[in-house]
């Protein structure tokens, strides 16, 4: 290449790049970061529907940034440490707040909550408001809820164990189901999101553990737990081998790789929306100790370093408005935190989900598990302990009792080090320790 040509190209490139950057945005813009809405379709929806509506109404533009948990927490903590920030509003899982509060990120949201209460148009579920108290302050305003269910392709229903009720499925049913599919088709069609970005760990500690042992932590190495791990080994025989790659189950469902999948409601919704007629939604299975499920709460808080707290409060008002909450459940399958929105009847694929969630919550043997709290900076170690246990027992085939004993020691160390309380359905013992 001749030098002058090269220079011209470089100059042109610089022009192309810098000129648009020089243009300025609207008068008011706030930055909203979240660990939620990270799937592409959810981000798109949030930007195109949710925040556009807000901008139309208020003239405030929302710069929405969805992040991985790691960088997300780093940034919030770093801004707090420096005492200067760019984030006006942030929304994340309940379990993150025990880190954010002591790190000085979250401000007390009680005044905001009180303002919302004064409006009288929305009633937050009281238990959600109760658990939003973290470290002596109201750490967040409850924003959305989510849970996990099973989606099955209709063609899989032919193999469902005769005489059992799919809406009241047990873990034995699930195994039998998988076996039936396997013996009929020669393929394994039950899938879990056990890939790096998947939520399989939630299934282990929040679903199957309490369902078999009635506990998440305390009965970690109990005989019931040993029984549960034996069950999981058998279940492994009918699991789709690709499960360790899956992050979001809507994709293998749509592809047909998997016929029966367990995942977060938001991560199943795209399949239901694309082909609502192909799928059915079922509640999570029940074990000997009931039908345990996790309720995930997402809260909103304004960082202490927020440049524009006032506009952020207006966005909170907008997001927790019953109409917006209905819009949210319909759009991305996150469920309301205010009573006024809970009554709205969803449509389409979302309707299937809502029915299953209702069935799950309303089941006679329902047992709510909550995400662990109080683990502070070491919160991130909790879930991997369960996934690692699964890997050692089911993948590497190590002896169950030995692995459980070793992992229980780590679990105990974690809880003792952070002096944390047992998560429900375990009794509130501090520090929690496996028996």
């Amino acid at each position, binding site marked *: 290449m001749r030098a002058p040509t090269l220079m011209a190209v470089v100059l042109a490139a610089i022009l192309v790049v810098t000129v648009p950057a020089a243009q300025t945005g609207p008068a008011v813009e706030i930055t909203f970061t979240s660990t939620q809405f990270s799937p592409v379709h959810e981000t798109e929806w949030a930007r195109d529907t949710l925040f556009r509506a807000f901008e139309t109404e208020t003239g405030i533009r929302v710069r929405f940034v969805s992040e991985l948990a790691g960088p997300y927490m780093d940034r919030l903590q*770093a801004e707090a440490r420096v005492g200067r920030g*760019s984030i006006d509003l942030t929304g994340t899982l309940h379990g993150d707040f025990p880190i954010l509060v002591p790190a000085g990120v979250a401000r007390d949201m009680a005044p905001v909550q009180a303002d919302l209460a004064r409006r009288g148009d929305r009633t937050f579920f009281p238990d959600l408001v109760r658990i939003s108290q973290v470290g002596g302050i109201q750490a967040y305003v409850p924003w959305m809820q989510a849970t996990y269910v099973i989606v099955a392709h209709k063609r899989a229903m032919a193999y469902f164990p005769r005489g059992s009720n799919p809406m009241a499925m047990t873990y034995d049913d699930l195994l039998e189901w998988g076996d039936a599919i396997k013996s009929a088709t020669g393929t394994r069609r039950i899938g879990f999101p056990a890939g790096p970005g998947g939520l399989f760990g939630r299934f282990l500690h929040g679903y199957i553990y309490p369902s078999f042992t009635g506990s998440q932590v305390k009965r970690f190495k109990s005989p019931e737990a040993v029984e549960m791990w034996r069950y999981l080994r058998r279940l492994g025989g009918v699991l789709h081998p690709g499960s360790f790659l899956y992050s979001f189950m809507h994709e293998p469902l749509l592809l047909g790789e998997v016929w029966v999948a367990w995942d977060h409601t938001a991560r199943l919704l795209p399949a239901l929306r694309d082909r609502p007629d192909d799928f059915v939604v079922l509640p999570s299975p029940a074990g000997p100790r009931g039908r345990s499920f996790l309720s995930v709460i997402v809260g909103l808080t304004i960082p202490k370093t927020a440049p524009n707290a006032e506009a952020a409060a207006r966005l909170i008002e907008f997001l927790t408005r019953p109409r917006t909450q209905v819009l949210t459940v319909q759009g991305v399958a996150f469920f309301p935190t205010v009573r006024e929105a809970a009554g709205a009847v969803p449509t389409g694929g979302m309707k299937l989900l809502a029915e299953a969630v209702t069935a799950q919550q309303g089941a006679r043997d329902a047992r709510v598990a909550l995400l662990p709290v109080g683990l502070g900076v070491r919160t991130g170690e909790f879930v991997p302990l369960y996934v690692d246990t699964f890997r050692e027992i089911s993948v590497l085939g190590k002896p169950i009792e030995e692995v459980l004993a070793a992992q229980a020691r780590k679990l105990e160390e974690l809880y003792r080090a952070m002096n944390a309380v047992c998560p429900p359905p375990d009794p509130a013992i501090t520090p929690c320790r496996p028996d």
Partner: protein
Amino acid sequence: MARAARTALLATIATLIAAWVLFPILLISLAAFSSRAQLYSWPRAIFPTPPTMDTILFFLRAQGVWQATLNSLIVALFTIALAVAIGAPAGYALSRFRFPGREGFRLGILATKMFPATVLAIPLAVAYIRWGLYDNLLGVAIVHTALALPFAVVITTSVFIGVPMELEEAAMTLGCTRLQAFLRVALPIALPGLAAAAIFTFVLSWNEVFAAAILTLHNRTLPALLINAVAFAGAPLDYRFAGGFFMIVPAMIIIFIIRRYLMTLWGVTIR
């Protein structure tokens, strides 16, 4: 006879290797031009009938893709400017002078290649916030420069070794100062080689994922956007394939531009 057989054998090997390199690129291109429905069906057709832009348009219309592409370009240009501005003087010094510490510097520069971006990005994230470089494209460019600098130094060294010292000396005897001699003689001759270095730097920056993902908030580069969407955010297959295709197109163009320098890209550096 034996010669003809040998030629035929060589041609076969070359063809096989070329096919091995091109075939996967062809496949991802086919995937990028297949519709979502085609990608999700089984059995799947290899050739999309008809080819469709839907998948690529879906990707390009996705929020942030254009901005991220623009950011990637800005970061890459910053990186090129920094890496060449900082690396070229060092390369010039290494090519022109024998001085105590020269070998030490060379080894030190190469040793920096041993340390992954992971190690740099983590502590720098904290430091950047203090320094006001966080979520700043310049901040990303700086880390990319740190990663690209060894290559910039090595390539510019070989470039300047290729420009005889005597040319500059001749210019100096003709009345130039040292700086004038460099600017009027060495630099114009070295320019194509420096362009190759710049393009190499561009490739590094364009492809870098980890640091970009850690160090930005709004101002994501394309790979940072993609890794988030692909590895963790459950981007659908069509989005992934379109993204993969979109990332390799510049790669092919760039290698095409510098194909003349491929023979000498590493050139004299190992002498």
